[in-house]
């Protein structure tokens, strides 16, 4: 009897602390996020440009999206294709982070250089890459030509445009590198040393000790990567305008056009919530599968 009372008291105390600590976010959520999100949910049941009169259409938007809209499927496909390259980015970032974690001279400089692309202002970034990708006079083809390779079609062809955008995003891998660096710092050196004394080779040291210890960070990158990749937008808007021939018509770009160029905020809200559902489902699945394999120290 006493045990249960103590246990209940403990749970109450744990619960109290839980809410105490997450209060800043919870209050912020209610004040700042919940209302606009609810408004957009309601808007998805309308055909409305936010200025003229509201026209209630119920679930018509959703029905149209699924049955009458080839661009919905096209843009979803384009976006998933983009997202499928995510693992490459994570692996590359992890690789670089390990190199930069070594005790060598000059790592600070290398780390800074790797991070610099992340901080170049978006405007300058797009202008720069637009020039670099130019087929006849751009830097990249000039380099290719100088080593005897033929020019690549970069942004101008449906077949190469996605690849070009991937290259551009890999260049900004520094952000992910920083996270992995921080995680690698948290790896307890004594564990590695103990393993060395036990005669463990490189493979064991890395895959059996280091990797599991930084798996929370890897998991983080994966989840954030999925959420971010499925909402890719900037490159489509500023660099390719969805082309050529809609091959880079990302889902959010399509949504943006519906909302702001065709003035159908209701339809766009419908698209937004469908994406929300897709991302949420994928995230929950990843949490329940890969999430279980993540090693947390306690």
């Amino acid at each position, binding site marked *: 009897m006493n045990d249960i009372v103590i246990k209940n008291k403990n749970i109450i105390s744990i619960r109290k602390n839980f809410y105490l600590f997450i209060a800043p976010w919870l209050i912020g959520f209610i004040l700042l996020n919940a209302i606009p999100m609810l408004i957009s949910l309601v808007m998805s049941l309308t055909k409305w440009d936010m200025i003229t009169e509201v026209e209630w259409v119920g679930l018509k938007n959703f029905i149209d999206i699924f049955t009458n809209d080839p661009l919905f499927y096209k843009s979803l496909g384009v976006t998933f294709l983009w997202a499928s390259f995510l693992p490459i980015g994570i692996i590359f970032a992890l690789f670089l982070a390990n190199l930069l974690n070594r005790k060598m001279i000059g790592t600070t400089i290398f780390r800074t250089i790797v991070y610099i692309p992340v901080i170049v202002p978006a405007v300058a970034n797009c202008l720069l890459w637009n020039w670099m990708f130019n087929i006849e006079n751009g830097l990249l083809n000039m380099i290719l030509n100088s080593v005897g390779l033929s020019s690549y079609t970069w942004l101008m062809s449906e077949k190469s445009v996605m690849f070009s955008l991937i290259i551009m995003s890999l260049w900004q891998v520094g952000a992910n590198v920083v996270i992995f660096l*921080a995680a690698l710092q948290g790896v307890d050196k004594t564990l590695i040393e103990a393993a060395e004394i036990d005669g463990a080779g490189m493979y064991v040291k890395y895959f059996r000790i280091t990797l599991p210890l930084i798996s*929370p960070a890897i998991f983080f990158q994966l989840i954030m990567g999925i959420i971010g990749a499925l909402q890719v937008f900037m490159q489509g808007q500023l660099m390719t305008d969805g082309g050529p021939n809609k091959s880079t018509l990302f889902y959010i770009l399509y949504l943006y056009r519906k909302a702001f160029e065709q003035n159908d905020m209701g339809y766009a809200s419908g698209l937004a919530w469908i994406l929300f559902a897709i991302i949420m489902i994928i995230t929950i699945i990843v949490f329940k599968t890969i999430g279980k394999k993540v090693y947390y120290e306690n």
Partner: protein
Amino acid sequence: MVSTKKAKLYGDIFAYVILIICSLIFILPLVWMLLTSLKSYDENISFIPTFLPQKLMFENYRVALFEFIPYFKYFTNSIFLVVVGTFATVITATIVAYGFSRFKVKENNFFFMILLGTMMLPPQVTMISSYVIWAKLYLVNTYVPLLIGCFFGGSAFYIFLAKQFISGLPIDYEEAAQIDGANKLQIFFKIIIPLLKPLIAAISIFSFQSIWNDYMGPLIYIKDVNLYTVAQSLTLFDMPHETLWGEMMAASLVTILPIVIIFAFFQKYFISGITLGGVKG
């Protein structure tokens, strides 16, 4: 012993080779920006671009920073925003993350999914409603809409990152302190925070960079020309009928500088060797 030394040497050489190649590629755009910033207007709009500037136009910097716009006023505005924003984000994000990490009640997962959910709805559909709400509160044209989120944990990004990090810390320290009678808040500030140095460094870097470079938020909310941020002011160089390439790149390079400095400064928290041993056994 010898073989480990050799292994390290080979490893280092391999690392250097890769890093140098990567660095050359990564720094290329920066070099381009620098060269562009030193070229004249005509050179920059010429159809087939030259690589090196014909004449070093250092006055692009003078025009960009002193004549065209009051750059340093905007610089100060941005400094204000990043300092307040980063400070608030670091504190609130770690507090909230601690809550999610250490207190396993049934609702924990539910609320965590809501947290992540806030990142899953495209902002394009909430932009206008948020704007209208701020407009009704007469707070457009102030920094409040831009900074307020930082006081409530920043975004789910920081909270999630912090949670992963905190979950990776051994619970032994906290248990020891609890037995000694400390309450949770005391434990948090006296024990957890010092262990989070690499995390705080990472959050600070990201928060600084994200607030410093954010131009979308200011473009929507800041219309008073005295309140512009430095990232927002860069868009002023790109006018519909004239783009001042040289000056824009000059201003952009100066804009990047503080982040590079902050990054270099926080490097000392990334030095390996934070041993957490000493409690076990």
